[in-house]
């Protein structure tokens, strides 16, 4: 009996009993049976209302009402499906674009690593490496002695974690009979424990594993899913990495794909000590691996701040230790050399990729504008719709609806629109991020997460409130009496209202100009990049990597000579060459070079850097790069013949001016390898499409005391990719463990270096287009609405003699005025945006006239198109009908 809820039946029963008791009493007072009952009921009043009040008493009345309002709102939206669909789609597009871009920004710039306490994690960075060292990244890679010194202290950083890729791109692995490629890192024993990454299956590595160079591997959850279908039996099986058997001992936590964004690591092995598994897949230098070569700065370091230690404290404590460890194996710093300075950076997945930050911020601003246009569009649609409903509202008020009820109805309608639009937007964003990831070649997940959801919900809530409240003023302006005495001609001509509409349309047109100019500049940048001459003929070229195990240098020469012979003999092949660094892949070998026995003089502060590559015979013939003087490498140049080298025009111009470069000697900066220049080639692109001409030099692979993995370049007739299966067969005859690494056409390879710009431009183009569509619908909606409001006025005008042309001109003049106002406002804004974009442009000035003219013309065309239909409708108004309507 603890305050059990009383049923409605019980209450009804009580009222019945009341009526009986009352009737009894009335009968006693002398009324007839019938009269008594009637009067009892009369006295009681409305039984229904009493029961309803009882029902509502212990119910969340608001919820009940809300449900009713919702149903009502749904019915009222269904009555104007055109409006509802336009509003929902507009919202979905605007919001979806924002969610997608924010999602990418979140994944790339905001999200922390999926590890334990990411805020205590830091990337170890240096201002510069000491002179005389080779580096992979001059700020982010360290030598083994530095790693060793840092991990053996525990004052500032504990633990210090090292990791290094097994290859610049992918490594050869084999699980079954077929070789494959995968992305793998060698890591210190503290990698999983130090980062705090869980292993749902199996185990991670221990420091003992690092010391023992244990032959074990941990797979990423993603790789395990993709390649092994989440087979738990995979533990204990063998994965051959570059032919070396590794036992799979664990699976890393879902979502952990390594500590660097943009790529996803497939597997990890402890730091190794064998030539097949050197850092970055490089062959040993003078027989030394990464762990013994103290002048090769190749390891990336990530560390956890020791408990209670701040970043500044850690840096202060470790600076002296770092600076002494930096010179292990180098001796003392050279005269006037700036010693390297240690610093600690945020352990963000894209901590080092700040180049993505700017484009993303610009994109975010662009989609913000698109959203603004979309929102104002929907608001204007709502206002227009509710203005035409003013009489409906007045009627409702007259019939006794409270203003509260009207407000609830409007809010419910907006809630419905926002919910439907938001759901669509989310679906759209999920799909868009997937496509974006592919375009941007970001392999790690960009999918929206909780932060993104919160962002979207907040934006939607704001939109919902805006949509609900904006039309309220219009709705409530109608007094109850209005319903009866107004007609279309008088009730709908409100100067203030239409002024707001005109201002909004003008602003939209201005934003549209800004977006179109931005999009135009970026698309022209993309065109320029795509049409940049590479200095070679990439059509018909296909490239792939091979990384055979090479026991000795002579064996390596023989192997590649054999491979080249077999590939050149294949039908449909015009020529074949090999190169150490794949061109058009961001990689290059940069160093100073001696010219005629000494480092060349350069003007103050100028760079001496030369980009070099190691290639075989037929390199320039295969690429289609003209040899301007001398000859190129031939098969007759070999280990026993005099060392020969080649340079490009820029090298000759910079370091051997006013002389015939042929016959001069060039060599490495330490003077240990020299070669005679036998040819000069025309400048061409090496690393990327947007690079400026830079001195370049080429070594003959068959002459240098160093040999490792190579990239094969083939010029073939017909579809370049069609040759790959046959080429794969040839390679696997050599060694069944060898996959073709990243096979693709050379054009695609070069295009990867502008993929970000292309992506950026395509997105900007899309958003510009989206803005145009939205502005067109908005303008059309507003004008169409205004024309329909003025039907009666137009009717009167025509009745008193206005010609159709005059009526059309009246409508068109209106939109032309708005357009010119929008253009006048938009152009200076666009100039600001163009200025902000300067860094992202290539071959286009921020004040590119064509982009501006096209944008303005585009906006005018859109405005005129959007006004054409309403204008035509205005012209076809039948004066008699128009006047009779009300």
């Amino acid at each position, binding site marked *: 009996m603890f305050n059990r809820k009383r049923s409605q039946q019980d209450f009804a029963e009580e*009222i019945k009993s*009341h009526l009986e*008791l009352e009737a009894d009493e009335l009968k006693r007072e002398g009324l007839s049976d019938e009269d008594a009952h009637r009067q009892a009921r009369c006295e009681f*009043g409305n039984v229904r209302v009493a029961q309803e*009040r009882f029902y509502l008493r212990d119910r969340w009345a608001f919820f009940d009402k809300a449900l009713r309002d919702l149903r009502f709102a749904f019915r009222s939206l269904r009555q104007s499906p055109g409006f509802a669909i336009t509003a929902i789609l507009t919202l979905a597009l605007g919001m979806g674009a924002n969610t997608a871009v924010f999602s990418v920004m979140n994944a790339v710039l905001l999200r922390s690593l999926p590890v334990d306490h990411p805020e205590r994690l830091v990337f170890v960075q240096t201002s510069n490496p000491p002179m005389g060292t080779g580096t992979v990244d001059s700020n982010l890679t360290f030598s083994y002695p530095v790693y060793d010194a840092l991990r053996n202290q525990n004052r500032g950083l504990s633990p210090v974690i090292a990791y290094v890729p097994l290859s610049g791109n992918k490594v050869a692995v084999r699980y079954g009979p077929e070789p494959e490629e995968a992305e793998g890192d060698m890591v210190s024993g503290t990698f999983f424990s130090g980062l705090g990454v869980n292993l749902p299956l199996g185990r991670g590595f221990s420091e003992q594993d690092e010391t023992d160079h244990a032959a074990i591997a941990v797979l990423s959850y993603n790789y395990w899913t993709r390649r092994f279908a989440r087979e738990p039996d995979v533990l204990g099986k063998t994965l051959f990495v570059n032919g070396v058997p590794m036992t799979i001992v664990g699976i890393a936590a879902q979502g952990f794909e390594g500590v660097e964004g943009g790529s996803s690591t497939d597997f990890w092995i402890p730091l190794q000590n064998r030539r097949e598994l050197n850092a970055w897949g490089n062959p040993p230098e003078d027989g030394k691996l990464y762990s013994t070569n103290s002048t090769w700065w190749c390891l990336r370091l990530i560390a956890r701040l020791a408990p209670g230690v701040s970043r500044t404290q850690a840096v202060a404590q470790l600076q002296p230790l770092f600076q002494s460890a930096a010179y292990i194996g180098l001796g003392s710093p050279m005269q006037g050399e700036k010693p390297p300075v240690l610093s600690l950076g945020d352990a963000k997945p894209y901590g080092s990729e700040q180049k993505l930050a700017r484009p993303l911020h610009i994109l975010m601003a662009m989609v913000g504008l698109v959203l603004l246009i979309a929102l104002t569009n929907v608001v204007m649609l709502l206002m227009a719709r509710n203005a035409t409903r003013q009489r409906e509202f007045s009627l409702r008020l007259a019939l006794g609806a409270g203003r509260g009820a009207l407000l609830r109805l409007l809010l419910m309608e907006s809630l419905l629109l926002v919910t439907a639009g938001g759901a669509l937007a989310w679906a759209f964003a999920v799909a868009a991020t997937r496509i974006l990831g592919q375009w941007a070649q970001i392999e790690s997940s960009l999918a929206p997460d909780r932060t993104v959801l919160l962002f979207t919900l907040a934006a939607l809530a704001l939109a919902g409130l805006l949509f609900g409240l904006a039309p309220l003023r219009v709705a409530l302006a109608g007094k109850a009496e209005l319903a009866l005495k107004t007609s279309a001609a008088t009730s709908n001509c409100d100067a203030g209202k239409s002024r707001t509409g005109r201002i909004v349309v003008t602003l939209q047109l201005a934003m549209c100009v800004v977006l179109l100019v931005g999009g135009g500049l970026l698309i022209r940048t993309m065109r320029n990049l795509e049409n940049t001459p590479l200095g070679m003929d990439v059509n018909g070229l296909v490239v792939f990597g091979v990384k055979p195990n090479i026991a000795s240098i002579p064996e390596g020469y023989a192997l590649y000579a054999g491979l080249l012979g077999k590939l050149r003999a294949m039908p449909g092949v015009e020529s074949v060459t090999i190169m150490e660094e794949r061109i058009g892949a961001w990689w290059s070998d940069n160093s100073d070079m001696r010219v005629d026995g000494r480092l060349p003089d350069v003007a103050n502060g100028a760079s001496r850097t030369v980009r070099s590559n190691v290639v075989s015979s037929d390199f320039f013939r295969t690429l289609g790069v003209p040899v301007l003087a001398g000859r190129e490498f031939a098969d007759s140049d070999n280990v026993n013949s005099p060392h020969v080298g080649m340079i490009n025009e820029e090298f000759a111009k910079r370091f051997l001016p006013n002389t015939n470069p042929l016959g001069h000697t060039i060599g490495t900066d330490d003077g240990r390898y020299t070669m005679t220049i036998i040819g000069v080639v025309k400048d061409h692109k090496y690393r990327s499409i947007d690079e400026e001409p830079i001195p370049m030099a080429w070594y003959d692979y068959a002459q240098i005391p160093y040999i490792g993995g190579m990239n094969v370049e083939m010029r073939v007739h017909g579809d370049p990719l069609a040759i790959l299966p046959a080429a794969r067969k040839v390679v696997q005859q050599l060694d069944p463990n060898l996959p073709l690494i990243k096979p693709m056409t050379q054009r695609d390879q070069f295009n990867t270096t502008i993929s970000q710009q292309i992506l950026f431009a395509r997105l900007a183009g899309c958003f510009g287009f989206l803005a145009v569509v939205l502005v067109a619908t908005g303008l059309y909606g507003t004008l169409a609405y205004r024309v329909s409001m003025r039907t009666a006025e137009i009717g009167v005008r025509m009745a008193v003699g206005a010609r159709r042309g005059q009526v059309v001109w009246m409508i068109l003049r209106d939109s032309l005025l708005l357009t010119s106002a929008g253009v006048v406002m938009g152009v200076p804004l666009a100039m600001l945006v163009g200025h902000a974009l300067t860094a992202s442009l290539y071959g286009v000035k921020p004040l590119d006239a064509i982009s501006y003219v096209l944008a303005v013309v585009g906006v005018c065309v859109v405005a005129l198109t959007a006004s054409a239909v309403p204008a035509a409708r205005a012209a076809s108004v039948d004066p008699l009908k128009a006047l009779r309507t009300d």
Partner: protein
Amino acid sequence: MTTQDNNDDRIALLQGTLDLLILKTLALGSCHGQGVARLIQRQSEEAFFVDHGSLYLALQRLEDKKWISAKWGVSENNRKARFYTLTQKGREQLVEKTGEWRRLARAMGMVLDNHHVPNREEA
């Protein structure tokens, strides 16, 4: 909907006074809803009009507050009826509310009695 006869002298109950009237009525002994309504009307010499719907809701409200308790029983003329009884808590409330009401009535009386506006008096 409650309709009120304009030429009726009954007074619509002030908010909150109904609770007090119910408590007072029940202080005399347990009673069903119809009885409470009749008693209130009779004791006020038919001056109060009790909206029955409101009465039953008030009864329910008081029951929820545990000022009164309810039980189905049989009336003197053998009809099934729900009988309400004052609880201890209700009794305390009755004393308190009665005091409050008296103070209010006195204050109202003082204000209304002491401010004659002579100008308005007609000769």
